[in-house]
């Protein structure tokens, strides 16, 4: 019974983190870059949204500025990586650190800013989970549609090819560096949007929001893709899978809390989940692959299927 009580909240939070995981999907899966700046940019999104709401701005403007702030963080990581030649992982870590200071500045030196939920007209809040699920669902659906259309455009196709094969992309006249910057901007913009939703949902922005976000994002991706790739391996299905992964992650999360695990250990649990998902495919090929019997006619084949 207790579990059913926390379920709506778990789904709401899962949707928000699933949206964040879509941002991570773009950098990690499409661009093939493990971008650690998301830990900072989700918090930036939350801080910008909370502070602007406190300033009496309309909610749509708060969220728009949050997205732009996140995109800017992505541009910064992109430029560290492409213009200054810093390895992508390190570029993300640098941005993450810069964002910690920036986020503190946005919060005016405080570590937490509460949103006055009576005066602000929020899209979603934890006091009304059914509505939060609908609002988050609609935002996610429109994000997926926009991304789906975008990745069929001329620019979108070359961003995909940049991640898959930068070599041939350059040979086909694609500005690979520019594409990485654009891709990271989109990725972090989505992550910051998730941050803005998170701030509204919790009714506050905290300087520690988003610590370990990349790990949660990856967990959602791995959980989601392990199912969706088996159903239909296409873009939209993958994104829906990632959202599902976020929800499953939060259901597990809440379940473990109910079982009595101290919340102090939850970050460790997230890391272990991700480590397992990364390790299992490797261990499978390393230790559990049986040698196939050699078929008859196993000469230097391939000649006929030119």
């Amino acid at each position, binding site marked *: 019974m207790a579990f059913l009580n926390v379920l709506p909240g778990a789904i709401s939070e899962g949707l928000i983190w699933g949206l964040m995981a879509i941002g991570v999907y773009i950098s990690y899966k499409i661009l093939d870059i493990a971008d650690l700046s998301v830990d900072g940019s989700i918090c930036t999104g939350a801080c910008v949204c909370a502070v602007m709401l406190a300033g009496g701005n309309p909610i749509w403007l708060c969220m728009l500025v949050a997205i732009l702030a996140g995109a800017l963080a992505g541009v910064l990581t992109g430029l560290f990586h492409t213009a200054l030649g810093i390895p992508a992982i390190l570029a993300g870590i640098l941005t993450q650190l810069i964002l910690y200071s920036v986020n503190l500045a946005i919060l005016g030196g405080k570590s937490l800013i509460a949103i006055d939920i009576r005066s602000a007209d929020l899209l979603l809040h934890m006091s009304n989970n059914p509505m939060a699920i609908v609002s988050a669902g609609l935002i996610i659906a429109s994000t997926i549609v926009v991304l789906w259309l975008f990745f069929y455009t*001329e620019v979108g*196709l070359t961003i995909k090819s940049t991640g*898959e094969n930068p070599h*041939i992309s350059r040979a086909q006249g*694609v500005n690979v560096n520019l594409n990485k910057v654009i891709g990271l901007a989109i990725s972090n913009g989505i992550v910051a949007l998730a941050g803005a939703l998170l701030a509204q949902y919790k009714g506050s922005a905290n300087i520690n929001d988003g610590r370990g976000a990349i790990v949660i994002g990856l967990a959602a991706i791995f959980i989601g893709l392990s199912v969706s790739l088996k159903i239909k391996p296409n873009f939209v299905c993958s994104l829906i899978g990632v959202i599902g992964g976020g929800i499953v992650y939060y259901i597990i999360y809440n379940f473990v809390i109910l079982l009595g695990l101290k919340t102090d250990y939850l970050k460790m649990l997230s890391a272990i989940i991700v480590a397992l998902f990364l390790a299992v495919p490797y261990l499978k090929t390393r230790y559990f692959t049986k040698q196939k019997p050699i078929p008859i006619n196993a000469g230097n084949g*391939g*000649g006929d299927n030119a």
Partner: protein
Amino acid sequence: MLKITNLQKTFNPGTVNAKTALAGLDLTLKNGDFVTVIGGNGAGKSTMLNAISGVWKPDYGTIEIDGVDVTNMPEHKRAKFLGRVFQDPMMGTAPDMEIAENLGIAARRGTKRKLRWGIKKTEREEYKKLLATLELGLENRLSSKVGLLSGGQRQAVTLLMATLNRPKLLLLDEHTAALDPKTAAKVLEITNKIVTENNLTTLMITHNMHDAIEYGNRLIMMHEGKVIVDVSGEEKKKLTIPQLLELFEKASGSEFANDKVMLSK
């Protein structure tokens, strides 16, 4: 069409691993030249193609394509002049994207990419016809991921990508070397067809002396970062492999040494 003047490149300069790959290379190609390139191990053949493509900047010298000095032009910008096919079939395509998507990206080489559809409906029909000319049964697999194709099919698709938007210069870097003999012959036949039908100016590196003589209107041999033998026209047509080896030994003062050539008899 192509004019390379005194091109020089040393890798790892000032270290024990210093290697002079291009040592004052001069080469001029006329419009429509189909040049086959052979040479020993480390003669600078691939280095030459990489220099033309702009993978890195040369230490010295200039490269002109169709009258434009491209020496300092970044790789993705000079791509508008060039069609490229590589030795590794994995290198020429985006494996997790559809054949049509790969072709769509290639069709827009040299144009500014915008937020409009990456592949138009009419283009799909056009790609279908082009794929049919390959005679590899790919015309009905426009939506297949390129990663599912065999090495030979991939090289053929890469060849199509390189020539879809007519390049000023086609660069083929041993593009059949990784294929089995039968497939290699088929890909080479397609290459010859595309090059001659479109009258493309082409540089083709090969390790097969027989192919080097049979295809193209001109043959160059490289050694230690320079062109040491350059034959064309009637003289090239009449060449035999022993003559070619003799030419090489006379010009270089050493024996022809290329593992692949030796192994590919």
